[in-house]
């Protein structure tokens, strides 16, 4: 690679008291690529995300982001600044929408910082200067654009909490995209989706990668999603990285198979191969 990667995680370690949730992990995520982070339950995937997005301060490690907005050391930044300045957006394993607000409002809130500036930190907006109205119209257009892409335009004025489950998952992705991120972190976006919905999700992720040219970091258990969309996969187990490579490499990695099915090989191995195909 000629230039630095979009995200470089170096020697990331996160300890909670005596528990080492993440132990000396290093990996990279490239621009315009989807990087999958997989591993059994409790492997430390979500902890990695929480470190990346400022919800945890890592015990040790360096997280460097080289995005369109410049170079940032994420481990030194305040929680909300990571999204505001560095441009890292995320979704949550258990969906966190603003359930009482409308679908459109969820997407407008995501554009808060730009609108706040346009409203002159509320003063100009209160007086009703035209600059703010223009900015708001642009924000609505952007929101409509994303609603079209996730197929929620018809339900734009519904309460977000009234959307069906799959719709809520897609809205959360759209909301994260409305912050104009350079890196999108998705925490199990396919959890609870049926086969058709996960196929739609695959397409959405690929289209975000190809049209927005941003990096996507994806935690997922659903192998049909991971193997189809990921350009690169990192496998964690018990807080350590056990494999790192293309989907094809991961599929045949004995360490991965052992992590998912235990030590015994043979019959179990072929079972897993089948599952991973």
């Amino acid at each position, binding site marked *: 690679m000629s230039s630095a990667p979009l995200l470089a995680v170096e020697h990331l370690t996160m300890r909670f008291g005596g528990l080492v949730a993440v132990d000396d992990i290093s990996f990279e995520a490239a621009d315009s690529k989807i990087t999958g982070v997989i591993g059994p339950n409790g492997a430390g995937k979500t902890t990695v995300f929480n470190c990346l997005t400022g919800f945890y301060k890592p015990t040790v490690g360096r997280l460097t982001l080289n995005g369109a907005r410049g170079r940032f050391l994420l481990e030194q930044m305040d929680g909300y600044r990571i999204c*505001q300045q560095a441009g890292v957006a995320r979704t949550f394993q258990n969906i966190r929408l603003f359930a009482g607000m409308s679908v459109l409002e969820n997407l*407008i*809130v995501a554009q808060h*910082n730009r609108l706040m500036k346009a409203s002159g930190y509320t003063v100009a*907006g209160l007086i009703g200067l035209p600059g703010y109205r223009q900015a708001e119209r642009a924000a*609505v257009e952007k929101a409509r654009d994303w609603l079209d892409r996730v197929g929620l335009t018809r339900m*734009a004025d519904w309460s977000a909490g009234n959307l069906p489950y799959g719709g809520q998952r897609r809205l959360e992705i759209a*909301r994260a995209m409305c912050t104009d991120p350079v890196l999108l972190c998705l925490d199990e976006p396919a959890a609870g989706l049926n086969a058709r919905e996960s196929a739609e999700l695959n397409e959405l992720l690929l289209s975000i990668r190809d049209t927005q040219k941003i990096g996507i970091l994806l935690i997922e258990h659903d192998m049909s999603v991971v193997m189809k969309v990921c350009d690169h996969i990192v496998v964690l187990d018990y807080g350590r990285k056990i494999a790192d490579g293309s989907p094809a490499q991961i599929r045949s990695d004995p360490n991965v198979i052992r992590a998912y099915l235990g030590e015994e090989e043979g019959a179990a191995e072929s079972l897993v191969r089948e599952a991973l195909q």
Partner: protein
Amino acid sequence: MTTATVGTIAAAPAAVNYRDFAKRAVIAGFVTLVLASLLVGIETVSTVNGLQVATRYRAVLCASLGVAIVYFLVEMLKAGRTLVPLLVGLAMIALFGVLEWAKLEGLPLGDQLPFNSWVVNWGVMLVPLSLVLRSLYLTFWAGGQGAVAAVGQRETGFTRFYLRYNKLFGALLILFAVGLPFMPFADRRLVDVATLVLTYIMLGWGLNIVVGLAGLLDLGYVAFYAVGAYSYSMFAVDAGLGFWAALPIAGALAASFGLILGFPVLRLRGDYLAIVTLGFGEMIRIILTNWWWFTGGPNGINNVPRPTFFGLVFERSAPPGKETFAQFFGLTYSPIQRVEFLYFVILVFALITNFFTLRIRRLPISRAWEALREDETACRALGINPRNTKLTAFGLGAMFAGFAGSFFAARQGFVSPESFVFLESAVILAIVVLGGLGTQIGIVLAALVLIGLPEFFRELQDYRMLAFGIGMVLIMIWRPGGLLAHRDPTIFLHHGKGKT
């Protein structure tokens, strides 16, 4: 209770655990008995022989029995059983009717009415009446027994009716408020009470920014009210500033107190925030009492000047160098002019608060408040600065309390720490919650009910708290989410309302 018999149709309502209801109803009745025997069971009566202690245990027994029965019936209504509550409610009303008739006829049976005051008797009858109406409503309009959910947060007829005529209703209300002092029935007392109600409406609208929009439960709101009142009084008495010159300073001071309180409580949520703000409110009151060299201590500050109308004073004779309102406009002096003027001042203040809130709701800051209320973690992940957003809410809410406080001081002409006790915070919060969090017109209704009615029902005396309790029970039955709990999105993609 196991009633899962073979062959029940799927649509049959779920088994109702009557024993559980009865147990809880008996407990509720017992608690009422204990509380009521302590509070209203004994009264001092002044007789020719001086003060004597009399008991009124019939009232206590009636109250506890009534609470137990009504509790049971409300539980049944919640479970979707409407027939028994309907019949029992009708029976209670009928019994009451007979007793009332007997009293009118002068029969001995008439002495059996539960309470001594007719206001209380009639007020208590509202409970079975509302039970009857509610069960009729559930039976006929909400689809009968299947409509268990209707007791919850669904929008009922009243809210829907209101929403349809939203704008018209608001305009009529403003028109009525402007015309009120000129109505034939408007005497000085009415205008005075209306001024008081408007003060609380303004406070409610101000607190609504903090509690309703930003979701920060503030139990010490009266502190900012006090800061506004005292800062105006001090600037006026010590520095000789007029009302209109001191007003912005008082607002700014109150807002900065809001920020000072806001900083340490940024990390707290829910109950913890409520406790800290409660403590802050008490601190301010105690400081006002104890720093006597600065605030006048328990005696407060006297002779706070009244607001002027562009320099015209509302007095019988003008102080040197000033002119009175009556002289300037060639009117004969009457004290009601000042009362009406104060009424219009607070009306304008309250309307400004309202329009400010309506306007700011469409701005990103208010959307961020609401988003913070819904989910702070998600807000942080979207790059919203929670600290600044919360502090703005605290500061703006406090600013309006400061304005209202200045007005309060100017109206009374006197401030003392006694006016800023915790009960005031509780009343303002009750107005906001009862009105339905986040709605503007609901707060008006709640302020009318909580401030206006007690002023006109002073006859109730020690039954006022009982009436307050009955009011709460009624609202619990009818509108568990507040009088007008409704939230309209602040922006629409498809122009047109009516979708969920």
